[in-house]
Every structure is written in structure tokens, then in C-alpha cells.
């Protein structure tokens, strides 16, 4: 273009242009000459365009830099069949705790399991679940689960790991060494079959069941005396009188869920039917079962056999009950029943009622033998009797011999490959015992969920699946068969189920193995096709299989067993029982209620669940009574060293009322050191106190040494009993109401004998005078709850269920010590009476949803308000966190987020959250909502069906849903026919702190103790 100007005459604008300054010519054609943009001011250092450019850039930067990373959510383009986003799906599966299995329904949202509930079609659980089942959800999402296999500490693939294991197996087989696979207790017929198949395919291999908690007293006694290989499960609801010999059937026993259900069904007396069983407990330690006993007799463990012998003597010799052989009768003649006060009355009670004796599973064979003899005398055995002889816990036969044998083999160096399949012997065997036993073993491999203590000794580690990711099956003690189905694809890439892993290894060793079954799933189906399907009478296996999956289980008939009483064996054991052990200081090692054997010690939910007896979290303690502590010269929270022949641990002292003299007790499951970030540093490993090759729980002689140190124990409840005669006047608080059955029968008003005077109310049912009008709930729903303190045993299922349902954070030991635990429901425990043998009262305490809630009127920002349906609602978004509501709560059930307890959850922990419940940030108050999300969900579906008012039972709270004792009933109190309404007007109902006139929505039903008429 510039050329044009050279022709014709010259038009010019400046001299520089005219004289063809190259700089000017260059820009001549440009519409926007840079210089033209220059501001006229000489001071300007920036052109307009540069400025606009920078402005745009900085605006863009501002926009980019301060915005959170963009996240797009994409709705389903093709919606999966059977699934509506936002609507939960429920899948049936099976939970197995050791060899006790029961059905579950797992709530799944958008493919994530988010809540575990019992399966109501299952006869064992009856729709209930334990705290362990509830917490097993967290173990699915545990970020500390191992991601991928390792070979010599470097990442590998499962295939490679299996191949390396197979190489090792071939190598040791070549030199004539043996392969041993250690597995945990299980209830799976398919796994059992697989183990036998593996043994068949690899002849030098044996699969040994070696659980952490080894207790074979019951199985041995049953096998020797009755010819039944395994543990028999009684039905406590059939017994009018139950004698517990230091058993924890309502607590730490794996099958406790069943026992709580059966026991509690006979613990809810009404005036119309005062049917109630009576529980005696004779024990050295204070167990959960003992604390629920109507009559409890603390006795040092050395006296338990003598007590039972005396009882047997009383029943057989004095009362002439039962036909014992002469040899046995002769042995009994030396036993004395007069040593124990009240024994005669126990005998009287047992003799004159349908009764059963349950013996603690940690007790030795001879004690169990005495129990068997007593039950035989009492006539407890038989089909459909209290102890149904067909109800044998699956695979519960004594493992004593195989464990002894494998230990011998290991020590002799006969074992070339030791494969640990989901067991952790390095933890559960004392001290260095495991290291010593594998010293001569060439290869130790591990299949586990965590890189635990044992896997440190293993050259190859393959992570295995969680049961919610895997296929499996189970048989229940009543013969029902159940399926475990995966709810979610394995969260970690390199994982296989235990079955797949074992099959994979075996297949690498022997290509011909498992030819017809490609995977563990195929194997499982094949097993069912062969062993379960034929009995079903169905035409098509797939139909049968699918229906089983849908239901979770199918009822089955238990195998009939014949009792063959062996009196010689009985005599032999009786002789052992008759030996008087020296009365030394004895320690009772029992599984912990929360952690059991410590396999799930990495679960904060369980660590923070208070022990039902001591209320201790995050660690174990050694319990002893005040007198013993004084004698040993220790105080509460003194750290002592417990020394046994096997080893020693250091634990803090906990003064526990009700312990027998010279009896100590501690729990296993704590003191884990490897495998996760949560578990390390809490408590000590009580397994290391138990001598190798005997039971890993039970009584052991102990000496106590002082360490001079002290340690804070994280209890959620301090030692403040309601016992009388103290300075503080607290016995006059009528917080928990109770009466003996006799008092209740005679006059139900006995329950209210300690009522504080309330103005304007003559009768207990009267509303106190108030200056404000009552709230009008007349239309729609009015939510209410009843809690039967007579039925509640304090098992903690509700606590963990609530944690799972409501996204309640775990706060850790330090915070619990500070008093900042977040549980929305807690189980208050009070003692009454004698310090050495107190009566225990339990009272689940949660937001009472008061009609005149003291919290509501003090909140300055109206963050906690009353709903027209009687709920006391918490609006987290509005809460500024003054904590005034909590201060003004007479029940102290509100919980404050002192820190950002949820923080940034580690992957994949955030998947566990219930999407219907807000995850609370720091600085806000929270509390029980009566599971308002469940109420609303039920209301939506009712509305879809054109109903305004929900039916009774249509909505249940998480705590109610889990409660094995059926102690919690929730519902609409506007409906006079609802079960909650009926419970409320019953003659045991009371409101806690009624005299404050806050009108709680929760009615407690008084505790009835069936203690009178027995020993008193």
C-alpha cells in the first residue's frame, strides 16, 4: 500500500513521512499506530492498549487465581436400570464375626455403601446389628488399607505375587518341607470346602484355623462329655433362670447379638404380664453380662470351679436331682456347698425353673465340663430345649490340636512356606514368640487388608478384599445358609478376595487345580449348586441363586446331633476341677468389647466407642476393685506393669467397682503398632500376657509392678455413682428409676417413689403447671421415643449406628480426655449400692427433643428451633457457635465442633458420608435429630402414595434400627395405636428431670430388676 503514495503527488502528514523515515513507513498501513496510542502526556509509561491488555489479563488472572478448581458434575446420560439417583438401594449380604454370621441389609447410595443395617428376614439378627457390623462399613473405606501387592517391599501385581508364592511353594515342596496356611475363624462352607480342596491339590499343605482369640474350653468339654464337636448356642429366652459363670454372652462373645435379642425379649415386664427371666452372674471380673445381672456374685476366678462343684453337689446330692453316675456322685461328695453364701438359693432357683448355665468361653475345659454337667442335670439339653443340641456354632470345634501341631512343626523347621490368610499372629502371639516360631521357616507370606505387624515378617504381601467387596457365603448355627455379595467394586486396584487369592496361588502351583471354576465367584456358585441348591427343591439354580441374593439367606434345618454322654471324661475333668488352685493374684484377659481381637483397631469409630462397663475409650486398662488397688498400692491412672510367665505390658489402673478381690482384668485388641495411622499408640497388647499354646484369653497368674508413671484415661463418663450416703446429695436425684419385679408387681407406683415434687402435678402423668401454653401438635405427626432401660444391656450398637448414620466425627483420645467426644447418643451408666458389688443402671441419653426446650430460647440467632412435629431442630448453617444452648441443656447432649474434626478426609474416606446428613464444620453445635433425614424420606414416599401420615414402623431411627434389645421405640405419638404411644402410657414410663418441666419427647421405661424372691 505504501507504494501507492509514491505515485502521483505526495500527500504527507509529517516531515518524517515525507522524507520516508523507514520507521514511519513500517507502520503506515497499520490502522493503529503504536505511537498514535501514546497518551499525550510525557509521563505516561504505558500505552492505552498495554493498559487494557494488562487490565484484561489481570482480570482474567483474578478470575482464575481465586476460583476453586472447576468441577463439573454430569448427570447420568443413560440411567442405570433399577437405580434412581438420590434414592437409596438396599442389598442383602452377610456379616461374619468369627464363626457367627447374620444377615445385613446394606444401604447404598449412587453405588456407595453408606450404612449397614440388620436384615429383618434373617432369624438370627431379626433386623438388628452389632456395633462391630456397623463399624465394618468404616473398614471398607479405611484409607490405610493396602493399595497393591508388594514383593520384597516393592509394588507388584497380584499375578506376579501369586507366581512368586507358587515358586516358593514348589521350591520347599521339592526339599520335602510343608506348606501351612493360617486362616481365621469363619462361618463359610464354601471357604471350608476351598480349604479342603487346597489340601487335596497340594498334599503337603494344611489350612489351619488359628484365630487371635483362642478359646476352646467349651468345644473341648462338649466334645469330650457330649460328643458334640463345637460350641452350643443356648436360647436364653427359653430359660427362666440363667446362671452366667463369668460369661459375657451379652457382651464380647461373637454371638452376643443373638443372645441380647433373646435375653431382652424376656426383660420387658408389663403389669399385665410380669414374665421376666432372672440372670445370676458369678464372676471375678465385671463383664457387661454381669453388670446386667439381677443378682451378681463377685468371686475370685479360683473359686469358680468350687462354686460350680458346690452347686452340682447341692443339686445332685442334696436335692437328688438328675441321674449322675456313681463315680461322679462320689467325686461330688467332697464338694461343699456351704462355703458360698446364697449358693443354696441359686440352686433352689435353678432347680425349680427352666434354667441354664452359661460358662464364659475363656474358662478352662474343666469349668465348662461342670457347666455341661449342670445343664445336663437341669435338663437344658435337647431339641428345641433351652440348649438346642442342633444349634452348634459352625466350625467351632476345638482347634487345640492343630494349633499345637503347627506350632511344633514351625519350631522344628518342618514348614517351608507359611501363608497368613487374614490373620495377624505377630500381634496375637506373645512378644517375640511369632518371630521365634518362624525363624526356621523359609518363606512367610501374607494376605491381609492391612500391612500389620505380621506382614512386616513377610516377603510377599497381597491385600485382600473387604467383605463388602467380595463374594462369600455363610452358614448360621440354625442351619440357615447365607450369601455375602459385593456391594462395590474393590476400592483398591490390586486386590483380590481371599478365595480368589488362594485359588490364584494354588493355580500357579498346579495348573490343573480349579479347572472348572475360573474365579472364586464360580467356585462359590458351584458349591451352592452342589450342596445347597438340591435341598431347595427349586427347578432352576439361577432363580434360586438370585432369590437367595435378594433375601440374603435361606432358612435351613440344622443337622440333628446326638448326645453321647461320656462319664469317664466327665470324671476326669471333675477331678481337675476339684483341685484347689493356689490363691494368687489373677488377671482375666478378655476380648475388648469394641475391638475384640484388634483386627479393626484402625477404626476410629470403634476406638472411640466407650467400653460398656468402664466407659474407657482409646486404650485398655487394668481393672481392679478399690481394696485390691489399695493392697497393691496403686491409684486410678497409675501405670503399672503386669508381668506373667509369658510377658509383660504396661497399662493404667482403673478402679472398677464390682471386681472380685485379688482379681484383675484387662482386654485384648489394643496395643497394635502396625497397619494404620489410627491404631498406633493406644493401649497395650494383652495377648502377650497369655502363655503360648494355651488359650489366648482367660485367667493367668500375674504380678503387678509399679512404674511410677501416670496416664490419663480417656473415659467418657467419670466415676460418679448414684450411691447414697455421700456428701454431694446426688442420691436424691431421681435420674434413673428402678424397682424390683416384686415391688413392681405389687404396686407399679413403686417406680415413682423417689419422684421430686413438681408443682401442679399430683400424679406422675400430670403435666406440671406452666406459664406458657402447651405446644399445639394436634395435626400430623408428633414424634416421640421410648427407651426401655430394663431391656437395654448397653451393647453400644446404637452408638455406632448413630455415628454411621449421622456422619459423626471421631475426635481422638486427647479430645475425649478434654471431654469433647461427639457421640449424639451415649449410654449413661450409674452404679447403686455396695461399692464391692454395685447394681448397674444404664440409660441411653440423647437429645430429648423437649417441648419446652431450654436450648431453643437461648440461641441468639435462632439456629435451634422447634418443629411443628415436636422435633428440636438444629440449623447448622445458622449456628454461630455460642454454645449457650449446650450450657442450658439439662441433659448435656449437645455436641460442639471445637475443631474441624472432619478436616479433609483422606481418600476414600469421604465416600462414607451419608449424603442426606450435613457434614458439620468447626464452630457449630450439633446433636441428635431423631434421624430427621429418615423421617423426611419416609414422608416423601408416603406423600407419593397419597398419605399424609406415616404408618407406625414406617420410619425408624438409626439407634432404634440397630438395637438388638428392641429397647428403643420411635414413632408418632399423635397416633394412639402406635407402639410408641402404647409404651408411653405404660406404667413404667418416666421423663428424666421431669421436675424441670421441659417436657421431653423421650419417655424412659423404668428398670425392673428380677432380684427379689431369689437370693435377697
Amino acid at each position, binding site marked *: 500500500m505504501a507504494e501507492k503514495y509514491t505515485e502521483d503527488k505526495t500527500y504527507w502528514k509529517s516531515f518524517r513521512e515525507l522524507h520516508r523515515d523507514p520507521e514511519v513507513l513500517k507502520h503506515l498501513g497499520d490502522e493503529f499506530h503504536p505511537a498514535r496510542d501514546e497518551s499525550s502526556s510525557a509521563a505516561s509509561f504505558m500505552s492505552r492498549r498495554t493498559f487494557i491488555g494488562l487490565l484484561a489479563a489481570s482480570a482474567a488472572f483474578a478470575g482464575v487465581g481465586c476460583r476453586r478448581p472447576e468441577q463439573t458434575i454430569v448427570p447420568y446420560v443413560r440411567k442405570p436400570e433399577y437405580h434412581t439417583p438420590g434414592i437409596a438401594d438396599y442389598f442383602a449380604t452377610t456379616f461374619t464375626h468369627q464363626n457367627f454370621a447374620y444377615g445385613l441389609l446394606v444401604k447404598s447410595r449412587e453405588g456407595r455403601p453408606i450404612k449397614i443395617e440388620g436384615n429383618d428376614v434373617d432369624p438370627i439378627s431379626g433386623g438388628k446389628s452389632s456395633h462391630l457390623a456397623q463399624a465394618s462399613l468404616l473398614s471398607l473405606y479405611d484409607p490405610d488399607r493396602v493399595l497393591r501387592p508388594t514383593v520384597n517391599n516393592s509394588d507388584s501385581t497380584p499375578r506376579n505375587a501369586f507366581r512368586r508364592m507358587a515358586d516358593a511353594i514348589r521350591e520347599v515342596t521339592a526339599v520335602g518341607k510343608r506348606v501351612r496356611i493360617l486362616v481365621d475363624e469363619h462361618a463359610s462352607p464354601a471357604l471350608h470346602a476351598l480349604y479342603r480342596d487346597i489340601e487335596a491339590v497340594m498334599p503337603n499343605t494344611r489350612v489351619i484355623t488359628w484365630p487371635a482369640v483362642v478359646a476352646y474350653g467349651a468345644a473341648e468339654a462338649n466334645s469330650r462329655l457330649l460328643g458334640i464337636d463345637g460350641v452350643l448356642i443356648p436360647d436364653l429366652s427359653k430359660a427362666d433362670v440363667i446362671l452366667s459363670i463369668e460369661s459375657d454372652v451379652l457382651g464380647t462373645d461373637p454371638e452376643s447379638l443373638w443372645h441380647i435379642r433373646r435375653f431382652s425379649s424376656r426383660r420387658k415386664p408389663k403389669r399385665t404380664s410380669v414374665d421376666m427371666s432372672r440372670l445370676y452372674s458369678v464372676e471375678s471380673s465385671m463383664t457387661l453380662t454381669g453388670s446386667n445381672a439381677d443378682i451378681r456374685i463377685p468371686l475370685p476366678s479360683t473359686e469358680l470351679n468350687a462354686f460350680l462343684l458346690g452347686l452340682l453337689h447341692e443339686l445332685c446330692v442334696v436335692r437328688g436331682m438328675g441321674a449322675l453316675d456313681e463315680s461322679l456322685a462320689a467325686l461330688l461328695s467332697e464338694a461343699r456347698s456351704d462355703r458360698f453364701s446364697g449358693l443354696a438359693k441359686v440352686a433352689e432357683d435353678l432347680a425349680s425353673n427352666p434354667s441354664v448355665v452359661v460358662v464364659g468361653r475363656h474358662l478352662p475345659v474343666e469349668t465348662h465340663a461342670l457347666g455341661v454337667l449342670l445343664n445336663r442335670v437341669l435338663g437344658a439339653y435337647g431339641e428345641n430345649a433351652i440348649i438346642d443340641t442342633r444349634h452348634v456354632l459352625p466350625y467351632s470345634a476345638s482347634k487345640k490340636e492343630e494349633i499345637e501341631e503347627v506350632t511344633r512343626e514351625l519350631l522344628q523347621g518342618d514348614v517351608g512356606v507359611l501363608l497368613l490368610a487374614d490373620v495377624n499372629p505377630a500381634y496375637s502371639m506373645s512378644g517375640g514368640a511369632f518371630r521365634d516360631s518362624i525363624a526356621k521357616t523359609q518363606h512367610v507370606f501374607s494376605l491381609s487388608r492391612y500391612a500389620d505387624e505380621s506382614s512386616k515378617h513377610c516377603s510377599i504381601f497381597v491385600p485382600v478384599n473387604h467383605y463388602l467387596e467380595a463374594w462369600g457365603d455363610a452358614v448360621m448355627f440354625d442351619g440357615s445358609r447365607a450369601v455375602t455379595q459385593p456391594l462395590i467394586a474393590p476400592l483398591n486396584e490390586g486386590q483380590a478376595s481371599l478365595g480368589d487369592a488362594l485359588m490364584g496361588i494354588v493355580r500357579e502351583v498346579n495348573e490343573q487345580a480349579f479347572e472348572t471354576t475360573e474365579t472364586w465367584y464360580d467356585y462359590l456358585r458351584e458349591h451352592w449348586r452342589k450342596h445347597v441348591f438340591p435341598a431347595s427343591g427349586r427347578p432352576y439354580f439361577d432363580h434360586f441363586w438370585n432369590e437367595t441374593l435378594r433375601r440374603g439367606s435361606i432358612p435351613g434345618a440344622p443337622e440333628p446331633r446326638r448326645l453321647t454322654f461320656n462319664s469317664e471324661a466327665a470324671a476326669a475333668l471333675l477331678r481337675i476341677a476339684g483341685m484347689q488352685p493356689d490363691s494368687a493374684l489373677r488377671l482375666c484377659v478378655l476380648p475388648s468389647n469394641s475391638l475384640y481381637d484388634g483386627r479393626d483397631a484402625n477404626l476410629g469409630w470403634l476406638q472411640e466407642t466407650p467400653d460398656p462397663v468402664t466407659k474407657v475409650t482409646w486404650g485398655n486398662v487394668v481393672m481392679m476393685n478399690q481394696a485390691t488397688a489399695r493392697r497393691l498400692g496403686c491409684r486410678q491412672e497409675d501405670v503399672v506393669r503386669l508381668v506373667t510367665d509369658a510377658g509383660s505390658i504396661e497399662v493404667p489402673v482403673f478402679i472398677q467397682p464390682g471386681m472380685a478381690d485379688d482379681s484383675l482384668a484387662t482386654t485384648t485388641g489394643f496395643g497394635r503398632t502396625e497397619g494404620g495411622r489410627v491404631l498406633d499408640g493406644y493401649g497395650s497388647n494383652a495377648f502377650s500376657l497369655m502363655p503360648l499354646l494355651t488359650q489366648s484369653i482367660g485367667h493367668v497368674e500375674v504380678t503387678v509392678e509399679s512404674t511410677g508413671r501416670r496416664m490419663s484415661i480417656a473415659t467418657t463418663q467419670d466415676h460418679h*455413682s448414684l450411691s447414697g450416703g455421700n456428701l454431694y446429695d446426688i442420691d436424691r436425684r431421681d435420674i434413673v428409676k428402678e424397682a424390683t419385679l416384686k415391688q413392681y408387681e405389687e404396686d407399679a407406683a413403686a417406680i415413682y417413689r423417689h419422684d421430686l415434687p413438681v408443682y401442679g402435678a399430683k400424679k406422675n402423668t400430670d403435666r406440671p403447671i406452666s406459664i406458657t401454653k402447651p405446644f399445639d401438635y394436634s395435626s400430623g405427626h408428633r414424634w416421640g421415643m421410648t427407651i426401655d432401660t430394663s431391656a437395654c444391656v448397653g451393647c453400644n450398637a446404637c452408638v455406632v449406628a448413630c455415628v454411621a448414620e449421622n456422619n459423626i466425627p471421631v475426635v481422638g483420645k486427647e479430645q475425649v480426655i478434654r*471431654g469433647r467426644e461427639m457421640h449424639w447418643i451415649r449410654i449413661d451408666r450409674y452404679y447403686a449400692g455396695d461399692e464391692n458389688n454395685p447394681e448397674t443402671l444404664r440409660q441411653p441419653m440423647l437429645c430429648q427433643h423437649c417441648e419446652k426446650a431450654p436450648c431453643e*430460647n437461648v440461641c441468639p440467632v435462632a439456629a435451634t428451633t422447634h418443629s411443628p412435629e415436636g422435633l428440636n431442630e438444629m440449623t447448622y448453617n445458622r*449456628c454461630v457457635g455460642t454454645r449457650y444452648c449446650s450450657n442450658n441443656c439439662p441433659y448435656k447432649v449437645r455436641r*460442639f*465442633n471445637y475443631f474441624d474434626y472432619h478436616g479433609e478426609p483422606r481418600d476414600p474416606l469421604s465416600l462414607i458420608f451419608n449424603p442426606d446428613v450435613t457434614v458439620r464444620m468447626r*464452630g457449630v453445635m450439633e446433636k441428635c435429630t431423631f434421624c430427621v433425614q429418615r423421617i423426611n424420606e419416609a414422608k416423601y414416599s408416603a406423600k407419593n402414595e397419597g398419605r399424609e401420615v406415616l404408618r407406625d414402623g414406617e420410619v425408624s431411627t438409626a439407634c432404634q434400627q440397630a438395637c438388638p434389645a428392641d429397647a428403643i421405640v420411635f414413632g408418632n405419638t399423635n397416633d394412639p395405636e402406635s407402639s410408641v404411644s402404647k409404651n408411653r402410657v405404660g406404667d413404667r414410663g418416666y421423663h428424666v428431670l421431669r421436675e424441670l418441666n421441659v417436657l421431653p419427647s423421650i419417655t424412659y421405661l423404668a428398670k425392673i430388676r428380677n432380684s427379689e424372691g431369689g437370693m435377697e
Partner: protein
Amino acid sequence: MKRTVDASPQHHWSTEGGGSLAARSDDLREALVVGQPSLNDVTETVSAIVERKPTKAWYVTISITGVVAAWGIFAILYTTLTGIGVWGNNQPVGWAWDITNFVFWIGIGHAGTLISAILFLFRQRWRTAINRSAEAMTLFAVICALIFPIIHTGRPWVAVYWLLPLPNQMQMWVNFRSPLLWDVFAVGTYFAVSLIFWYIGLMPDLATLRNRAYKAGNKLANTIFTLVSLGWTGANRHWHRYEKAYLILAGISTPLVLSVHTIVSFDFAVSVIPGWHTTIFPPYFVAGAIFSGFAMVLTLMILARSLLRLEQYITLKHVDNMNKILMATGLMVGYAYGVEYFIAWYSGNPYERFVFINRALGPYSWAYWTMVICNVIIPQVFWSKRMRRNLAVTWVISIFVNIGMWFERFVIIATSLHRDFLPSSWGYFTPTWVDVSIFAGTVGIFLTLFLLFAKFIPVLAISEVKAILPGAQPKHGHN
């Protein structure tokens, strides 16, 4: 100061002459200003403090208090960023040092307005020497107090405006039933009125300083004082309106003195917690507030008196009078302690009884007995006139009362909460370093502000002191 002043009243007594009967009766009283300073002397003395360069001691002191204040602010920031968990508060003790400090500082703030307003209305002329500093102290104490309602919340970033009844798009109103909201109104009003009252009273003095700065040729000071003195000329009309305004504000402030702590006490009295739910609280809290306020006034004034050489104006008579009030309110407080026990026993309410037994004998008994000793037993010394006029004794006792009154609030708040209805939820509170730092920080803030005040604002009300000088009062033609 050119003359040394003998602060002993006898000196003044002997030199004061006769006159009319009215004047004599006036003179029979102990003089409020000793040493017969002239009107100009008053102006000179007080203005000099503002005009002269700060001393080295002032710099050292304010550096120390400033560092303490900064440390406290850091602790507040730390709390806000981390969570209330850095304090010792827990379940069941939801409030501990935070609200203790709040009530403590609010209490301190009571003396100022009482002295300025109530004593003004009762024509207690001795108030003039101390009212300015007492009012300043009120303001600073209320500033310190106001920190706590904000920072004790879990989410102060929203609390700071959600606690106010502001119209908003959420259509969410505050809860008028909550005593915490009443607090917001009560303390807010109190602060606003106290500030205005103080400022109005300052205006003539500010104008004096303005004029002096003009004469001295200090341009900056002149500009500032010109702006803040709002065109005060000392004209008759100005004085007329000033007196009216002052009287009206005194009238407004008087009920506030009673209302603020009454409402603060409602935080507790309106609740259901035994130990809180007590109708005696309003008078008990007001008496306690005046008690603590006077103690703090004494603590600071005795220091200021000697440091700023104000012995002429703040005399032993002032100290004596204040000690009398201190003792009177102390006795009221002691009586309230006793009545609480009587009612607890008389009510037959087991929860109530327990709370008071627990106070005296429970885990916090040390705090309870500290409170009783400091508040009830030690002030009994003041039955003796000699002790009331002994500055050292007064100062030490005022410190004890400060400590005792802090513990009174702690005892009420923490010991009532830590063991309430259900023994299952009982707990114990132990403070953390953050709790201590924040409290220390507010002391630092308070002292820093007071030091700034003492340096830059006339510590005595010049015009008012002049009005009580001998001869300043109209004698109705007799003199």
C-alpha cells in the same frame, strides 16, 4: 508544678478562712482540692501532661503493655483460625474463661458511669477529680469486654453481624428470646452512651487544649483539637447547652448502670442450670460490678495520681470515699454469697444444694475460697479509716478485689456448668495457654488504651475541677 503540695487535709483545714454560715458548712467538709491551686494552676497542671513530651517510663510501660496486647491479639487470631478447641472449654463446660472475662470487663466498666452519672445526679462533687479517667476506663473495659462475645463463638466471622438485628435476604431475624441478644443491645447501648457522655464532658477541655496549642504554635495539635472540640468557644450559650446535655446524658446513663449488668446476669438467671438459675443475680451482679469497677478505678488512679503528680486533685478524701463504696458493695456481694447458700438449703432442691456444696467443697473449691477471701474477707480492713486512707493498703486490696471478682465470675460460670443435672456428663475445665494469653492480652489492650488516654487526653475534667475550687461556687452574694 511549681509548688510542692502537701496532700494532708489538715494543712488545708487550718488555712481555710471563715465567711458565711453556708460557706462555713461547706468548709467544714474536707476540701476536694488541696493546696489552693488557682484556676490557671488547674489548667496548667492538666494540660501540661498532654503537652509535654512522653517520659521514658511511659514509653517503656506502653511497650510492655503493647507487646502483651499484641500477644493476646495473636492468640485471638490463632483461635479464630484453628477453632475454639485451642481453649480448655469442653462438654459440659461450654463457657469458661471467655465469658468470665466478658463479665469481668463489663463489671470493670461499671464504675465509670456510676461515678459520672449517678454521682453527678446526687451532686457528689468529689467525683470531678476522678470521673474523666473512670469514664475512660469504662470505655476501655467495655472494648475489652466486647471482644469476648465475638471471639467466643465458633464462627465469629458470621457471629459479628448475625447477632445484630439486620434485615437480610434470608429473612432471618435474631431470636429476641435469647438473653445473649439482650446482651448485645444492653452492652451496645451502654458503650454508645458512655462514649457520648465522655466526649461531651471532654469538649470544654479539648477547646482549652486547642487554644493553648494555638498559642504555642503547635499546628498539628491545634488542627486536631479544633476538629474534635467541635467549635466550642466557651460562650454562655454553649455552657448552657452543655450543662443541659450533660444532665440529660447523666439521666440516660443512670438506668444503664443498673441495666447492663442486670441483663448480663440474665445470661445466667434465665437459664435452667442450677447455680445460674437464680433471681438474686441482677442486684448481685450490679453490686459486684460496681465493686469490681471501683477496685479497678482505685488500682489505676492510685498509680496515675503519683505518676502524673495529681495529688492535689485526687486526694485521700477521694480514696476514702471510694473505699467506702468498695466496702459497701463488697458487703452486698458477700451477703449475696450467703443468701445463695441459704436459698439452696431452703429450696430443698437437690440440684441447687449440690451446686453450692460443690462450689465450696468440690474440685473448684480453691476458686471459690479465693473469691470469698478476696471479695469478702480482705475488704473488711476498710472498716478502719486509717486503712481507707492508706494508699498502699488500698492499692493492694484493690488488686485482691480485682482477682476476687474475676474468680466470682469463673466460679459462677465454670463450677455451675461442670457438674449440673446428670452426673454422667460431669467434667472438669482446665485452661490452656491460649485462654491465659487472651485474658492477658485484654489486660494489655486495656492498659495500652489507658496509657494513651493518660498521655493524650486531659486526665482530669479541667472545667469541672475548676468548678469545685474554693470560690468557684456561687455563694449567693455572701462571699
